């Protein structure tokens, strides 16, 4: 036994979970527990009450709603990875999921847990920010939500209100064809925490000209960021290597790089530029049907 003592509750409804959370100051929600349990084992987290939301109806599942795919917070990462809807409508998420931990942790880890946890190196938050997704939550006071780019506040820190429970994550679906994605990561070992990760999704017209571009960087910065200026600069180009290199300069120079013991800021910035370029060219090739 490594964790500090706590009480365990298994509410049957979201309402019950929300009241428990509101009533106990040091309570924590546990979903898949693949980050929280190690944090508790190392006593970096010492909740006095664990509220297990795994058995609440309606918190798991993947469905299409208008121009979005909605993923219930409790949906296991492995279920999303196997989902045909995710593969058909969210190719960028499908490309990123195999990078999330390892199969055994994806079997337990959840989509919502990864988003609420807000590890700077996490892949699901990066995809959510890159695609301009949204999150929804519920508390005793009612429902709320916000855009992904307003949600992440720093390493392991979000704008989720203190007594709210993340309920779903919404990913926009791009309309039309000729869409391609690219995803790259640099880490010490495969599936370790990413020093830098890059996610790109592009759409081309019939002549191969880029008509829509989304590019995000994770791992290097305190939370994932979308490179809006680069995306704007790339729309209308053929996504040639020189277009990509030119478009990335200013955004990559402006990245607020994290400082930690694992990789120097200069290295992370260089790798961010390289992986962003690689993700974009993979996305372009995939959209044109060229196999990388």
């Amino acid at each position, binding site marked *: *036994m*490594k*964790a*500090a*003592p*706590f*009480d*365990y509750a*298994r509410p049957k409804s979201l309402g019950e979970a929300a009241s428990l959370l509101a009533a106990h100051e040091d309570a924590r929600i*546990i979903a898949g*527990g*693949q980050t929280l*349990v*190690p944090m*508790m*084992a*190392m006593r970096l987290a010492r909740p006095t009450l*664990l509220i*297990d939301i*795994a*058995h609440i109806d309606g918190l798991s599942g993947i469905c299409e709603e208008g121009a979005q795919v909605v993923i219930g917070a409790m949906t296991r990462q*492995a279920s999303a990875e196997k989902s045909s809807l995710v593969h058909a409508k969210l190719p960028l998420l499908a490309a990123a999921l195999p990078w999330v*931990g*390892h*199969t*055994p*942790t994806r*079997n*337990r880890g959840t989509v919502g847990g990864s988003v609420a946890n807000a590890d700077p190196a996490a892949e699901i938050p990066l995809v959510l920010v890159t695609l301009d997704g949204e999150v929804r939550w519920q508390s005793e006071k009612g429902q709320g939500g916000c855009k992904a780019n307003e949600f992440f506040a720093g390493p392991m820190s979000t704008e989720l209100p203190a007594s709210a429970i993340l309920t779903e994550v919404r990913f926009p679906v791009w309309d039309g064809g000729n869409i391609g994605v690219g995803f790259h990561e640099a880490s010490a070992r*495969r*599936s370790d925490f990413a020093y830098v990760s890059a996610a790109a999704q592009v759409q081309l017209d019939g002549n191969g000209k880029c008509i829509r571009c989304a590019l995000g960087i994770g791992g290097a910065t305190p939370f994932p960021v979308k490179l809006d200026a680069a995306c704007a600069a790339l729309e209308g180009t053929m996504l040639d290597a020189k277009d990509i290199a030119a478009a990335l300069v200013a955004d990559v120079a402006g990245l607020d790089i994290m400082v930690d013991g694992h990789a120097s800021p200069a290295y992370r910035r260089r790798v961010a530029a390289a992986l962003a370029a690689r993700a974009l060219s993979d996305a372009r090739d995939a959209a044109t049907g060229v196999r990388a």
Partner: protein
Amino acid sequence: MKITLHVNAGERTVDVEPRTTLLDCLRDELRLTGAHSGCEHGVCGACTVLIDGEPARSCLMFAPQAEGYEITTVEAMSPAPGELGIIQDAFCAAHGMQCGYCTPGMILTAHALLKHNPSPTRAEIVEAISGNLCRCTGYGQIVEAIELAAQRLRGANTEAAR
């Protein structure tokens, strides 16, 4: 707190502190010591068990969370006391272990892989066991053991043979 776990097709009731991990509960309360305790924070895979048939780390779950799931440990891989299942036997035949610490986790991970994919490529085997550390073998013989097990399982025609 009192909890009831479904383990290896049986039902077991135990009285544990909520902070007891599933790993500690299996080992200390149920005497199923096949799940090994390595890092105890999710890094090594020595504690791997199957939860509803899929590999998971039993050190990353508190015992009360495990209520309601079907838990399978390496003890269930053997068809009868003193006998080895096909995957276990393949690990012996191919020298897929040295100290044996990682072996239960490797066996269960291989079991889940071969259930979904009876003819995995070498790359798929490597990917499947990438979350399980082995400090002895260098992995080569573990991969060979799983290839051998896959080949033997394709030849076997009974579920009981595993």
